[in-house]
């Protein structure tokens, strides 16, 4: 199943430096850290032409 990433908005109204996706009753939140392997997978997903959805609710 393809992951569907969301990028939420923080308390200051700006986009947080995280993305999350949901599957199997789990929410997986990924920080923007180049050495985080989940973030590396997210960057590959973006490189394939995908864009995360903005989410104002978590």
């Amino acid at each position, binding site marked *: 199943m393809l992951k569907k990433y969301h990028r939420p908005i923080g308390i200051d109204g700006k986009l947080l430096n995280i993305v999350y996706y949901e599957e199997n009753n789990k929410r997986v939140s990924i920080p923007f850290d180049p050495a*985080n392997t989940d973030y590396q997978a997210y960057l590959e997903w973006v490189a394939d032409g995908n864009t995360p959805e903005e989410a104002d609710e978590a």
Partner: protein
Amino acid sequence: MSVAINGTDGITYNDGSLQPSAPVGKNLIINGDMMIDQRNAAASATSNTSVYMVDRFEFQMSSVTNVQTYQQVTDAPAGFNKSLKITNNSTTQSTAAGVLCTPRQKIEGFNTAHLNWGTANAQTVTVSFWVKASVTGTYPVALTNDDFTRSFVTNYTVSVANTWEKKTVTITGDTSGTWTIDNSTGINVMFSLDTGSTYQTTADSWQAGNYRGTSSDVHFLANASATWQITGVQLEANTTATPFENLMYSQQLALCQRYYYIPAQGVNSEINVGWYYNSTWLSSAIDMPVPMRVKPTLTDTTGSSYYTMYRNNTADALDSLTLENSNNNHTCVSIYNNSDVSGTGGQAGILRTTNALAKLELDSEL
């Protein structure tokens, strides 16, 4: 290896060096005795895609259709109490070219830097372990670098079925290639159970490329209900194997928590103090027991009222939590919810898990 113990000065090793005590940290494998199982707590689990089993040991699977069962079990050779057991499905699978069925541990580059691999000063390493398998024959041990452009494959033999045997392989350090020495993977240590032809090579020499086994190795997936167990895994800078390095449980748990940590799970497990930034934004924070390798991924199991904020004589139920931010030394993350709660800005309380299935996980694995 021989030593002379001098009660006044310490221990003299056979290379003439004098040290005040036995070396600590010689084993570059973390959780080699399979004692730590944070994810499954000794429960059986199944998968046919890549997954972490006991702490630090990943089961890498590619093109595997047969579901594999993995579990921390109490069957172990003398001197150990736990082992990792993998059981093949009762059906069989032929080995396509791209099959990878590989229990492995990725050692962080900071911990392998002293081996000087990729230079003329590369040190020899010895891998030792106990294995018990239902299928006799040769199995591979492989070491690769982070980007899988350098590989060394060597074989060990399971001589007697369903019997614990100790195995030792010695591998000359690689003087070529790029071996990372930071917080990415320094060395992949792999114990493949089945390997497609794409990943097979000649044994006992360094190769350029991504290899895990040889054409003569056992095909685990082709043996219905086959089992393979391992414990006592040690990788040390040495030309021979020395006794397994036993660590205090708390030391080993802390080493594992650099890569994976469960802050809270189950009913009534405290997460931390929570507070309302405003009427609909609840924040909290999680402190980690040790600095994690990188800013960790937060996974929370979600469901109706899995988490509760107790404040001002009121219980606010919420279904999920999301990562908000992390500090730069990887010791703290902040979390929030702005979809389920309604409170009063400025009020604080205690945030708890309130369902048996509730679980927060922080993951910074390699």
